[in-house]
């Protein structure tokens, strides 16, 4: 169960891209989680030898191309978030579920704030607090990822 293959990483990323491309109707687009980011963070924390800062950067570029925003915006913020995520990756075994969730919350917050800063630099208007809503839906998606692919903190089946 613990063994992760590259195929599952890429398939989940492609599914995340599909979700990102899905035409969200009306106001629901504001609540839409950052699918690509959450999936990338999951694999980053679980298998850093398969999915590292470079993958995060590439995924960010894909998001840029798909959303039509300035190329490199998401790449930069994903890179930095990935770096922060990796710097505590080895301490994850000591975290319990709540702490891990808080950690992911902080990571998502970092990414949102970075994107917001980059957007303000390029001249967008300030979107207000609504801008932070995807963090909450992102946390829900994170729980879903853990439900599907298994947790990161205390694996039930420990091989000795």
């Amino acid at each position, binding site marked *: 169960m*613990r063994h*992760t293959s590259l195929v599952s990483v890429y398939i989940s990323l492609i599914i995340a*891209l*599909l*979700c*990102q*491309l*899905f*035409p*969200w*109707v*009306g106001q629901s*687009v*504001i609540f839409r989680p950052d699918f690509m980011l959450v999936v990338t963070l999951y694999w980053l924390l*679980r*298998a*850093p*030898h398969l999915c*590292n*800062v*470079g993958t*995060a*950067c590439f995924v*960010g*570029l894909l998001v840029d*191309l*798909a*959303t*039509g*925003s*300035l*190329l*490199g*915006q998401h*790449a*930069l913020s994903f*890179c*930095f978030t*990935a*770096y922060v995520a*990796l*710097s505590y*990756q*080895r301490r*994850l*075994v000591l975290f319990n579920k709540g702490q891990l969730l808080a950690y992911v919350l902080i990571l998502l917050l970092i990414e949102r704030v970075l994107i917001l800063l*980059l*957007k303000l630099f*390029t*001249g*967008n*208007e300030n*979107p207000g607090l609504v*801008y932070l809503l995807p963090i909450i839906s992102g946390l829900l998606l994170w729980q879903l990822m853990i439900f599907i692919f298994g947790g*990161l903190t*205390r*694996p039930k089946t*420990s*091989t*000795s």
Partner: protein
Amino acid sequence: MLKGVHQNLETQQTPAFFVRGASAFSRMVFFCALSITIMAIDSRLNYLSQVRQAFIAALHPLEVVANAPGAWYRDTKKYFSAHNKLVQENYILKQQAFEHQVALQRFNTIQAENEHLRGLLNGNIPNQPKGMLGEISHMGRDPFTHIVVVNRGNQHNIKAGLAVVDSKGVIGQVTRVYPFTSEVTLITDKELSIPIQIERNQLRAIAFGGGNNTLDIPYLPTNVDIKVGDKLVTSGIDGVYPAGLAVATVTKIEQNPESPFAKIISTPVAEVTNHLQLLLLDLPDAREAEIKLTSETPETKDREVKKEKLNLNKPNIKTNTKPNTMPKVNANAPH
């Protein structure tokens, strides 16, 4: 026990003699530098538009797959829509068509008369802009930008810069064209401005996008003759938007005693969220100029462009302000 837990999480940094690659920090620095470079190239130079186009074209099948559930839902909903609703709609549409027909009859005679008069005065006959029907395939993927994606692209002869309208008024302008789709920036975007005219007193101004579904009209003095409820229409000076299309209605006028300018806020009349269909209007003048340019030799190109520009601007401005001086201007121009 602990050992087992450690085995489960695959290690990221191995000891130095099992060197696997660069450290996370150096990777981060490298990729951040890379993305900053890409950002600079994308924002200042135009090299990456080709990459973008190719990528979007490659992404098209995925997009179709993602759009499929929505399309199926809409189709089945249409199929099962009640019979009497259709009859009612048909009745209303017939009535509307009849009314439009009556209005068109008058319009045709007036247009013929106008052309005849302009011909008498040796003036230019303004071309009717041709339109192409498009459908909104989705609102922009980033909810905090003012972009709508339309299902017409390069393949349908769409060009960047076309004006986009719906049945109520102006929506915006095509800013990026991909092979099968194109991006329309709404007039409420901060980067877009549109030359307008107050319908009531023909006062010309330029409206800028204000974000949050508003338009700003800056640089007008506090005593300007604009009231709440005034309708703004396009003035047609820029040669992009044909004259006389509805743009917005003034909703709020603020007067700040510290500022010499009034703060005039208006709301667009086009209903982007309610309709799917919209019309992409051709640029008649630009198209003509292009055709002329291709037939000219390169040396005369610049002069021709200047001439074209002059000709484009003159009739618009003159007809708007003082039509009496028109024949002289146009008669003298060719000599």
